[in-house]
């Protein structure tokens, strides 16, 4: 697999990162060399091997259904650049 200009633009848009031409070129080179390196794994025969979703052999820890009653509003909004009446205020998003 090769990363080209279109792919890098698509990834940048999905990540909401703005890249200029110089940066795009750099990332294409970097990502391609990473992919080449990872692609060595293709040399291993993985037929009949189930994909592994986690390397840990422990069991998913679970919580009891107990809720805390603390009012988080002040703490949660502390770093918000803009807020109103307990809401985060962000630039208008309309779908």
């Amino acid at each position, binding site marked *: 697999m090769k990363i080209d200009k279109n792919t890098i633009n698509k990834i940048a848009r999905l990540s909401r990162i703005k890249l200029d031409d110089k940066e795009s070129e750099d990332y294409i080179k970097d990502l391609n060399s990473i992919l080449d390196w990872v692609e060595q794994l293709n040399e291993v025969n993985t037929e009949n091997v189930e994909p592994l979703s986690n390397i840990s052999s422990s069991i998913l820890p679970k919580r009891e259904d107990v809720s805390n009653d603390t009012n988080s509003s002040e703490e*949660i909004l502390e770093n918000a650049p803009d807020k109103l009446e307990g809401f985060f205020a962000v630039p208008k998003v309309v779908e």
Partner: protein
Amino acid sequence: MNNLVKGEKHDWEMVIGLEIHAQVKSNSKLFSSSSTKFGSLPNSQVSLVDAAMPGMLPVINKYCVEQAVKTGVGLNAKINNYSVFDRKNYFYADLPQGYQISQYKYPIVGEGKVTIDFKDGTSKDIRIVRLHLEQDAGKSLHDQNPSKTYVDLNRSGVALMEIVSEPDIRTPDEAGMYISKIRSILMYLDTCDGNMQEGSLRADVNISVRKPGEEYGTRCEIKNLNSIKFIKQAINYEAKRQIEILESGGSIEQNTMLFNTSTGKTRPMRNKEEAHDYRYFPDPDLLPLEISEEEIGKIKSSIPELPDELKNRFIETYKLSNYDASVLTAEKQTSDYFNETINSDSELKNHAKIVVNWITSELFSLLNKNNLDLNNSPVSPENLGQLIKLISTNEISGKIAKDVLEDMFSSGKTARQIVDEKGLQQVTDQDEIAKVIDEVIAENPKMVEQYLAGKDKLLGFFVGQAMKLTKGKANPKILNDILKSKLK
């Protein structure tokens, strides 16, 4: 049954599938200990996990998992011993993580089915593809300020069950019945509160049209509908839109649509270029979810009687029709109320049909008029039972019983009290009724002449007059019989 839609040129068939999002009834969120309470102050129930602060790790809520399994069992579905949480990546202001934790390839619940019942006594199975657990997003308010969107993260991280159906639905009515049935099952199981107004239950509708017998057409998805009425409206509009395009030689573009509840129209939500690329991958913060057969068995044994079982029991025990029984069992509060009413007096078991009618027509219409439901009905099951007993023993007529019920509803008195106080006991004494009829006949000689000359319709007039004199208390059957015999 003809389920086809008439187009300009020929008939079309709708093909509909639903994705239902049901909020899990739990105290705390799926991966954090914040409360799930509805209607609290904005951002007051947001933990550092829900706000996606760096370094925070999700820990799954055991009870939410059990609720999903319980629901799976209620949907006659296969429970998967092994499931995996994935990240569904997208960018939006009310999704602080930048991804939703969901299940993609390995959902917790697999294939199942639910049955919907039609008025004519027939029924139909709708197949379920899967049920998976995922996080809800926060809420955005777009209409408060021209340049700002306000975000409340209280809902962020609340557990959702997404229930996906096969495209087995063919009409808007079937879609409505299907979501009602799912809602009813969830409420009997107590795994979701079913409150569509508060958004605890909402649906995305996939719809395409085809000529009968042909392959499926291209579908469109209508997002986020939160009432059965809107679901039906949106389907009708969208099907018409697709048929018009196809009949004028065009083709359907696969698209995500929004439904405008005030205009009743659908419109595309985003164009293809911006189509979402979710880049699902297993969430490295969460191990696979494993559930043993033993745990599943334990949950199964805790499941209460579900609407279909209850319906069959009502049909068996009380000889009710399939339709009556399904109306009674559609909502848990209705079947509970029926059970309490019919068990309040041993006599009532023989009058089950009358009990059904008084609950589903008379009481329901009074409750509707007063914006109440059975949970806060001023008339208790015992009191309704008493009223119905007075009817079944002929102590009062059905007509008078309606007035008594209204009185019970507003005054809170029992049926017995009202009947005794107002002296509403039905007159069944033949002599007494005959006396009244003689009076009516004597007062209306001309009418009697006309009646005897063949104007049969006048019988109603005489009945009315006699009823008036007895203040509606005469037993209608006895009154009719005597009247007919006297006017020969």
